[in-house]
């Protein structure tokens, strides 16, 4: 079986197998299954031609021939990294679920594997119909993971997630159908294939409304301000594994959607709406950070920090230059590692104390030194300490952003101060100070299983911080192709010119 199909469908198939297993065997079964998927995905990395900007491992065949729907899979460096992020995170999530998931582990694991396959599907699909199918498929398992294994207000959170996403999806659907007809009008043939649709030259007006529809769907997923309010509820109510997969991978579907579909398909619309989206991204960065600062619930705090961090990714993508976009893509991976790890860490505490309120903790370092060390490393990874992963993405985004839109970037850069503020304040309130709460006195430090799923992420945080070029070498060629495509369109626009956004006296000086 071709590799991409295998990596996509194997987890779904294994998920069904796990669902048929007895409850008692499901833990090992699910873990082994997810590790198998990870191992299967490794040849994608080793076999990937880093220098090549074209899609690789392509599979392309008719699916519904009379409608022009194709089963078209392929990956570039960006999807490659996201797939590996997905396959690497899943075993860790399942391992963490051994203790956190108290009822029906089998069902939980089966859904998690199906979810994995669906998410990979969105990263490999090069046909808009196929993409849409996977996109919708992702929602189902997530809905149940929250609705069944979630906290007290799980139904509210699950419904909110559902309504938000479905509302966005409908807009996406409308745009895709519109595009489908546009293609027919222009060529007389029917196709939903991305490579076909990219050949269209649409009028700016058409591009604008289609882009707006797609952008709305993706912006909800990212989530961008002001369509972000499903995220904190979903995160708070989701079981640990759900939060991790949501933060690590699912949010990236939104930013990936911009990168793969919305922006290349409608470059003129990017020119028109770019400033607006950059503005929203920057508002999201500052707003997310400020709201995170005043949360009493640690999961909510991390959720709002996601809003802030994903704002950086959007800023990078819309900087439309190599450092910005590559930084944005890299930040997607970084956020997957560090925020995923943060949710796992919160989960460790939650399982011991069954509270997410920051005030219930304090002085935990004394009783859980190993936990404290890992928590601290991840905290600093999240606030972009150089040497750890977060810095690389953040720096490249801001560097690229400044070439393009200096003033918004300066505002965005103030997020690095706020980020340090809310994370360190949270860390201090939970980990430092005297150990006053009696309930915390006998907390056990991390056990080997917990170390087994946390340490890989810590190692990755260092590796990705010190040797980012291992990844960037694969990402850059794809990004350069993306930038070239966008460049052809935005050169004439005043938006493209960074000087225009600088005070005139400064710009003239630099001429």
């Amino acid at each position, binding site marked *: 079986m071709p590799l991409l199909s295998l990596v996509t469908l194997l987890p779904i198939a294994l998920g069904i197998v796990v669902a048929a297993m007895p409850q008692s065997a499901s833990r090992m079964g699910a873990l082994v299954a997810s590790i198998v998927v990870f191992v299967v995905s490794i040849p994608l990395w080793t076999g990937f031609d880093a220098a090549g900007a074209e899609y690789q491992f392509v599979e392309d065949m008719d699916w519904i021939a009379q409608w022009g729907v194709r089963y078209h899979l392929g990956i570039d460096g960006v999807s490659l990294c996201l797939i590996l992020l997905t396959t690497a995170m899943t075993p860790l999530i399942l391992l963490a679920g051994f203790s956190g998931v108290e009822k029906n582990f089998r069902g939980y694991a089966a859904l998690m594997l199906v979810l994995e396959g669906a998410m990979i599907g969105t990263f490999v699909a090069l046909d808009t119909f196929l993409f849409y199918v996977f996109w919708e498929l992702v929602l189902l398992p997530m809905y149940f993971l929250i609705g069944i294994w979630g906290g007290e207000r799980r139904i509210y959170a699950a419904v909110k997630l559902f309504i938000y996403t479905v509302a966005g999806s409908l807009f996406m659907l409308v745009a895709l159908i519109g595009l489908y007809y546009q293609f027919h009008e222009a060529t007389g043939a029917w196709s939903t294939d991305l490579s076909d649709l990219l050949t269209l030259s649409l009028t700016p007006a058409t591009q604008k409304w289609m882009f707006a529809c797609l952008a709305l769907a993706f912006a909800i997923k990212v989530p961008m301000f002001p369509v972000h309010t*499903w995220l904190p509820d979903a995160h708070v109510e989701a079981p640990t594994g759900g939060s991790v997969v949501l933060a690590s991978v699912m949010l990236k579907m939104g930013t990936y959607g911009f990168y793969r579909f919305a922006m290349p398909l409608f470059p003129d619309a990017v020119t028109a709406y770019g400033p607006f989206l950059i503005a929203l991204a920057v508002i999201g960065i500052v707003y997310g950070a400020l709201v995170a600062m005043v949360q009493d619930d640690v999961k909510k705090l991390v959720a709002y920090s996601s809003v802030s961090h994903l704002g950086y990714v959007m800023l990078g993508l819309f900087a439309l230059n190599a450092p910005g976009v590559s930084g944005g893509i890299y930040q997607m991976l970084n956020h997957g590692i560090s925020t995923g790890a943060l949710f796992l860490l919160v989960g460790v505490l939650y399982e011991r104390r069954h509270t997410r309120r920051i005030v219930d903790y304090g002085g935990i370092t004394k009783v859980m030194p190993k936990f404290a060390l890992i928590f601290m490393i991840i905290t600093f990874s999240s606030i972009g300490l150089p040497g750890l992963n977060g810095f690389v993405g953040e720096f490249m985004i801001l560097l690229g952003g400044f070439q393009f839109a200096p003033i918004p970037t300066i505002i965005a850069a103030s997020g690095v101060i706020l980020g340090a503020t809310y994370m360190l304040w949270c860390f201090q309130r939970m980990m430092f100070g005297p150990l006053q709460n009696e309930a915390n006195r006998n907390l056990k430090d991390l056990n080997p299983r917990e170390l087994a799923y946390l340490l890989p992420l810590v190692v990755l945080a260092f590796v990705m911080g010190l040797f980012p070029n291992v990844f960037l070498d694969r990402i850059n060629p794809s990004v350069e192709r993306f930038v070239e495509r966008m460049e052809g369109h935005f050169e004439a626009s005043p938006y493209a010119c960074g000087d225009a956004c600088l005070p005139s006296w400064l710009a003239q000086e630099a001429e």
Partner: protein
Amino acid sequence: MISLIPALPLLGAILNGLVLQKRASRVVAGGLASLMVGLSAALSFMTLFQLLGGAAPIDVPLWTWMSAGTFSADIAFRVDQLTATMMCVITGIGFLIHVYSIGYMDDEKDKDSVWRFFAYLNLFIFAMLLLVMGDNFLLMFVGWEGVGLCSYLLIGFWYENNDYASAGKKAFIVNRVGDFSFVVGLFLLYWSLGEHATMNFHQLEEVIASHPELVGGIGGCVVTCVCLLFFGGATGKSAQIPLFIWLPDAMAGPTPVSALIHAATMVTSGIYMICRLNFLFVMSPAAMATVATVGALTAFLAATIAITQNDIKKVLAYSTVSQLGFMFLGVGVGAFTAGFFHVMTHAFFKALMFLGSGSIIHALHHEQDMRKMGGLAKYMKLTFLTFLMGYLAIIGFPGFSGFFSKDEILWLTFITPMFESLPLGTVMPKVLWLLATSAALMTAFYMSRLMFMTFAGVYRGGAHAEHGHDAHAHADHGHGHDAHGHGHTPHESPMVIVGPLVVLAALSLFGGLLNLPHWAAEHGMLHHFLDPVFEHGKVEFPEHNPLEFPLMGLTLLGIAASVGLAYTFYVKNPEKPALLAARFQRLYQGSLNKWYVDELYQATILTPLVTFSRQVLWAIVDSQVIDGLVNGAASVAQKAGALHGRLGSGKLQTYAISIAAGAALFASAYALG
């Protein structure tokens, strides 16, 4: 070999912090850490001598760190004269302080955490070395933030005390404000260079030399903005107005940390950075004037606060802020070598005095209040004698190291040609000189006050048998000193503590020889050595001026008068200060309370920001407006089609049907077409 210099302390940090941990006793952990820094120091001095012998700067490329498009940054070192000198200061003083710490940390009750202390200390040396050795902005920034991290960890070393943990957090966040300014400056610089853009210092120097127009030429707006933004970064790390507020709080850390990080090395990184970028700063007289003015004002302001502080470490902390101001004044008037020379001499005498105060604090079981000291010269002879050397150096007693470095800064400030192109450019040097000289006089006064209150008179601590308890409550480090009992007389510290003091005292005494002024030698050694570094940033000062010696004499007289004043206040008529304080209540309270700068920031920035976030953004925008709209829309839908009831029921069919409906819609559209 060069790579080993930072690698060894890193190895030490890893060994102590991750491998040995609790298994390492105080002596093993401290010995290992000291050994690593000691080796690193030996290698640094070898490198220095190589360069002194006329060798060219050494480049050590390691690997390409990150790249995208034309942007690229390497992990690579470059050791030139400036870097080598800094490396020796860092590892040399670092080594002494590591050794000292072995003795200092002996009463740590929680013996399990000594390894942690040494791991952080080693990590700090590593980060500080990266800061000075990096050949590009990004690697420097790794060190820049890395030392901030270590500072955070070490200030909050006794993390169970919330105040200390807060002080650490404050230091990190205030520094982040500076870092924000620094990176924005970097972005602006990078953008202005266009196709010549580079992150590498050496290449940057060449680009600027051949294309000065890229940054707007001399006096250009771009270069001024870039330099001011970089200087903004320096005000954070080097504790200048307006970001100096974190440094006094940083004294919550163990005293060796105050000596190493918050006096001798880390806080001088801002001056190092400006020296490193001298070729850029000299292009903007306006930025230089800002640097010099902020430096002089900080020197003055901090001195006014130091005068009334009672905590010995707080006096030294404000004195550090003040001395850093002198260094910025030096580089700001274009006297880079003089500013950097003061970095070195200050490292000697301030490290010495901090360690000396540590020796006192250690002997008095963590008493830091000078009102409970006095007469210690009798009990702690070596500590007193070494402290005396540091004192004479800082007040600028002729012949001592501080005399040469401070006098050079004052004199070059007076005659600097740097600001001639600016409005009021001829008056400015005189005003700055006056500010700095008054700061120097105040320095002499408050340092004498410290000396008299601590070492002269009679011991005021032993009178209260209970003082040990008070001290413990005052400085709740979780230290055990029960074994020592109460009502003791102070005793001299052990050799491992006093040894480093003696070495530093010698350096404070003879450090001036490293850069003798023009009237004492043909050319200063440091001056000559650092010449190539400042090749493009040379400022030509007028050679001879009849005012030089009269001014020096005037300053010396003033210093003598200040010392005399302190003598009458704190030895002869000890009741005088209280009377004066009562007379000038407002002034006294202002100075004692640090002119309420912290309170000002709290009231104008922090509180409004948190309140706004909580009351407006969170409670209204997020919870009411946005969610209100969303939930409102949902409830409309619910009423219209009882959607919520079915969705909420958790039945699989409902969802399957909705998805199917979506797909069907898509499909039917195709079918229709």
